[in-house]
């Protein structure tokens, strides 16, 4: 970056997105993509295979077995009369629920929220951004609305939205999505505005290409790479916001195992039993870190102009 070898006068400057497999090869050479993607894959497997990972019902309450330290064992009487020992690897919470099982099942909620918030906000933001960038008379109205939404700090906006609905997965997804949309709209709009000045777009206009075709063929492809990158960062921040909402007690109902809920439940007895915050905290941080690393790696590969930011 600091060495700008303009004087090298490249014979063929590399295009923003080389067609073909070159991009994939470069992607798989990025350590941050490999590590981030790897950790994420593990989390994905954990979430999908949760029932098979030695867990018990994450919502099962056991008043006799509350607030136990990690590693404690307990005998379970099974339906057929026989008994087995179950080890609470991460202890139990103040309702006697198995923290390990809750943490494992919690991966599901986090990933679902991360992915769906990213997908929904990208989809809505893409449409609004394209419209704002191309339909001049709607541009002002859309962008002023987005300015207004962006003027409300994201978490407050999310809090405001959840306070309107009955708490639940859907409400939380809507609440986290709304503040993310303006950023996507701005990104898409700025790409549209700069790309439509490109000579190749003007050449397509001169070739009589109708506007919808122009958008799909010449403008939309330019948004793909930045949107993928933006999507990963939205995904990461969505998981964090979900945890924050749950932690504050205004997110997903407390009986649902989410990492935020486990930590919220562990707050009161934190001084004695820090593991209720430690374990879900590690899982959450690791997952978000993986997504962020993946995003950084994707950006460095797909968007050379932004490399190393």
């Amino acid at each position, binding site marked *: 970056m*600091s*060495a*700008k*070898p303009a*004087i*090298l*006068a490249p*014979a*063929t*400057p*590399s*295009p*923003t*997105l*080389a*067609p073909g497999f070159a991009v994939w090869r470069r992607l798989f050479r990025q350590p941050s993509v490999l590590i981030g993607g790897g950790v994420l894959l593990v989390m994905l497997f954990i979430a999908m295979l949760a029932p098979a990972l030695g867990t018990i019902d994450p919502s099962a309450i056991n008043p006799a077995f509350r607030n136990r330290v990690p590693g404690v064992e307990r005998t379970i009487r099974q339906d057929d009369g026989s008994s087995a020992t179950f080890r609470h690897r991460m202890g139990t919470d103040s309702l006697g629920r198995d923290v390990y099982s809750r943490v494992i099942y919690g991966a599901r909620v986090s990933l679902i929220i991360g992915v769906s918030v990213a997908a929904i906000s990208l989809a809505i933001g893409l449409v609004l951004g394209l419209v704002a960038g191309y339909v001049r008379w709607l541009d002002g109205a859309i962008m002023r609305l987005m300015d207004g939404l962006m003027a409300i700090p994201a978490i407050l906006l999310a809090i405001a939205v959840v306070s309107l609905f009955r708490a639940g997965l859907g409400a939380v997804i809507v609440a986290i999505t709304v503040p993310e949309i303006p950023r996507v709209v701005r990104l898409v709009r700025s790409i549209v505005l700069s790309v439509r000045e*490109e*000579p*190749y*777009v*003007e*050449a*397509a*206009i*001169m*070739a*009589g*290409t*109708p*506007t919808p*075709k122009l958008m799909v*063929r*010449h403008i939309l*492809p330019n948004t793909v790479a930045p949107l993928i990158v933006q999507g990963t960062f939205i995904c990461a921040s969505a998981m964090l916001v979900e945890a924050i909402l749950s932690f504050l007690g205004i997110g997903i109902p407390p009986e649902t195992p989410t990492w935020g809920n486990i930590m919220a439940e562990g707050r009161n007895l934190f001084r004695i039993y820090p593991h209720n915050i430690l374990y879900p905290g590690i899982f959450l941080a690791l997952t978000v870190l993986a997504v962020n690393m993946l995003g950084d790696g994707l950006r460095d590969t797909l968007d050379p102009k932004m490399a190393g930011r």
Partner: protein
Amino acid sequence: MESAKPVLEVKNLTVALPVGGDRRHAVEGVSLTVNTGEIVCIVGESGSGKSVTAFSVMGLLPKVLKPSAGQILLEGENVLEASPQRLRDLRGTRMAMIFQEPMTALNPVLTIGDQIDEVLRIHTDLGAAERRTRVLGIMEAMRLPDPERIYASYPHQLSGGQRQRIMIAAALVLDPALLIADEPTTALDVTTQAQILKLIKELQSRRGTGVLFITHDFGVVAEIADRVVVMEGGHVVEEGPAEEVLTRPKHAYTRMLIGAVPSLKPKGRPEPTGPVALEGIGLGKTYGERRFFSRPRIVKAAAAVNLKVRRGETLGIVGESGSGKTTVARCIARLIEPTEGAILVSNADIAKLRERQLRPYRRRIQVVFQDPYRSLNPRRTVGASIVEGPMNYGLPAADATARAREIMKLVGLQPDALSRYPHQFSGGQRQRIAIARALAMEPDVLIADEAVSALDVSVQKQVLDLLDDVQKRFQLAILFITHDLRVAAQICDRIMVMEKGVVVEEGRTSEVFASPSHPYTRALLDAAPGRDFAFAA
């Protein structure tokens, strides 16, 4: 000042390229000498290694490039072996450099005075008042108007020419023995270029400075060089006194380069008699911005432009930056809407038509843009770009492809290349593709907006020949936008000279060049570098 004491001796310089480049060395075995009071021009096309050589002397190469062999002696001292500290001491005092882009070479947030003063602060112990006197003195020597005011100005408040003068002032304030100039006038308008060249020549002969001048332009070489070094692909291919190299080039490459320089003498061209293909009447474009609490800003980019182009005729619009020539072209192409006037194509006025009504006429007018690297969609194959237009107008895919293959041959490219992507082609090839794309629409009018300005001179000649060829073949009316009088002289039947949005002169090319009537046209012609020099065309 012919004492012939060498200021700079480059001996067998080799600079390695990073692994994976298109060749192993950026420059290899380069030797050259600059004596006191002498201007040595390094000439070459892009990628010849001329800039790398210059930056090696200053020790300013990007980190990926490392000199691997040879010596660079500045007044006898090998700068390749100098410590970073020593190198810093030499820069600004014994050697100085000016760059291509005066727009970006000055720090935008520091005042002009501060930036010249910086050199004195780094290298001298002078007091503030004394430094100020010296800075104002050197600014005066650069013939900058009102040095006191400019001292306190910021770069964005000055013109390009003034900024380059500031760069020269900062470079010469401590009287270095060697001045390196890396294409210092390439980004400037031709009239400004002439002034800067004159200034450099005057200063160096008065001060006895040795100048290493990097350029791609043989006109500039003819204007100022004492000696010439021609580089190609990282090697020096020819070296000698300017007069000799320019008139009796020995090396084939030099001969080719000089032969490709378009002559300022217009070619005799037959009077075009075809029907009128395009007419502009009273065209104007005004940009306005209304603002609260301050006067509205109104810019007349072009006003009252009348033009007429016949089939088979090339009309050149010539002007410097800000003259409005590109605005006119974009209005006619209807990439922007003119604020007044009419554009007549096939008996219809298209000036105010909406996009949908415009469609039938779009194919009549096609454009070839300046930047060959941005005028093709990097994600689509060349073929897809070429067939797009004809298919928009209902040609079946198979027919469109057949036409594309035909036209590829016409522009001198392999039809098989249709399935490749733009980044696999060179700049000149891409410009051929852009021409092919335009031709595929079977237009009446072709607008070439600085279409050869970004190309090396040898490639430029080929593309100009191609334009000439297709014009004859299809009886095209060509609207040729350029800042380059040499190019205009060679390709245009008639030219229009624009200044500040208005046409100041119009006429047959040969007549305008022979007896320009408007003072601005005369100034432009006088400023053309190397105008007195007859290249071996």
